[in-house]
């Protein structure tokens, strides 16, 4: 190592010990500077809607209504919002989802926050669009347990749905296709709001505390979180085996490649402190435990384990700083209004 690099590293270590933010100069060929890292997290200007299902207010209203309507399920008691509850940051706050007949399912309910930017849906990526995803849980016997033809018949039998569909889809009859397009449109509007972190990225230096800024440096440096939790949503939308226990094949059930064994989609970290417990199986109760899991390099060593998962040797202070940073990603959003159900 050159003398100049050694001096920069030594200076950086002293700053870290003093609890002072890392310098903006960074380390050549090593840890990125804070200024370089911050450039990667700018929010997009607009929500993307696909050409084949463009946004309309009428579709959004219909989709919102369908999303909260339990009559879409076979038992008439489970709505999309039962597992994707806005009060829990569009999850359900449970380690594992609960489906038809109160049966505990195999995985935690993922949030639908910011799903407009996600190409492959579900923990295992088995749906290629929100329109495809929207009907999956409705038809799944273990979840909402509803035959799609029966769902359409139920909706047609609710008189006040007629005008809502006519305004949203003037040229189309009520069908599972229009139900899916309406729900997908509504889901695309569910976007995490401006968080203190965004204010900091925008240049307001006092928007987040100093320990969170050091946590940000760790996130992009020593802790290597940003290798998978990338961009403004803090996800690469990719699939990784992070070394959790269990026999769930994950992505490999749908893509038969060795590297996909036990691999699950990287979740967004936006509003993450509102969505405990964590991981696809709900096995980590707190953010602190989740950080601990990564610090250990996962629990299971196996061929499919992602090479990015390895012991990090974080100090107790560094773990706290990481958690402090993660808490700055939470936005103070306007409470969600639940629509009155059509009769």
């Amino acid at each position, binding site marked *: 190592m050159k003398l100049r690099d050694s001096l920069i590293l030594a200076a950086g270590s002293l700053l870290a010990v003093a609890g002072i933010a890392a310098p903006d100069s960074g380390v050549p060929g090593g840890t990125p500077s804070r200024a370089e890292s911050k450039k990667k997290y700018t929010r997009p200007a607009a929500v993307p809607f696909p050409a084949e299902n463009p946004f309309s207010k009428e579709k959004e209203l219909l989709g919102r209504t369908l999303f909260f309507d339990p009559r879409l399920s076979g038992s008439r008691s489970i709505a999309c919002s039962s597992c994707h509850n806005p009060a829990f940051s569009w999850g359900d706050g449970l380690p594992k989802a609960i489906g038809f007949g109160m049966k505990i399912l195999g995985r935690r309910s993922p949030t639908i926050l910011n799903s407009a930017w996600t*190409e492959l849906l579900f923990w295992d990526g088995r749906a290629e669009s929100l329109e495809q995803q929207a009907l999956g849980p409705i038809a799944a016997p273990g979840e909402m347990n509803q035959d799609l033809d029966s769902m359409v018949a139920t909706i047609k039998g609710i008189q006040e749905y007629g005008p809502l569909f006519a305004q949203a889809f003037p040229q189309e009859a009520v069908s599972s296709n229009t139900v899916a397009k309406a729900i997908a449109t509504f889901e695309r509007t569910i976007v995490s709001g401006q968080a203190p972190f965004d204010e900091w990225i925008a240049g307001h230096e006092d928007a987040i505390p100093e320990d969170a800024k050091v946590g940000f440096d760790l996130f992009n440096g020593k802790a290597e979180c940003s*290798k*998978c939790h990338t961009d403004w949503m803090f996800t690469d939308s990719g699939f990784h085996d992070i070394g959790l226990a269990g026999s769930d094949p994950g992505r490999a059930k749908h893509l038969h490649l*060795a*590297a996909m064994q036990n691999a699950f989609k990287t979740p967004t970290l936006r509003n993450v402190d509102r969505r405990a417990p964590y991981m696809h199986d709900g096995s980590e109760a707190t953010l602190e435990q989740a950080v601990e899991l990564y610090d250990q390099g996962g629990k299971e060593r196996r061929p499919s384990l992602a090479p990015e998962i390895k012991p990090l040797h974080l100090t107790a202070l560094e773990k706290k700083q990481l958690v402090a940073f993660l808490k700055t990603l939470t936005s103070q959003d306007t409470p969600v209004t639940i629509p009155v159900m059509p009769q």
Partner: protein
Amino acid sequence: MSTMLRIVVGSILLASAGVCGDVVVDQKDRKFSKTEVTIKPGDTITFTNSDEVAHNVFSVTPGLEFEIHRQAPNERSTIAFPKEGVVEVRCSIHPRMKMIVTVKK
């Protein structure tokens, strides 16, 4: 002889001998450097990884399947495309990485 001159001379000799060609596709910032490539049967593509994370390039296009398996940063892997066809290439770890390889005479 300069490096550049040797490359040029080598390319001319290979082309005149009817030797198959190779296209280099880099992976950087979780993207392929090329999203569409047209090659001839028997040509190869060399995938390089300039990212700090592993990739896993593959195709499940019927009859034209291949998988590089996990490719660490700075590794390179060469894949031959012996048959005509349109090959959808992906990274299984990062599904936003997509590329189309057209193989035709």
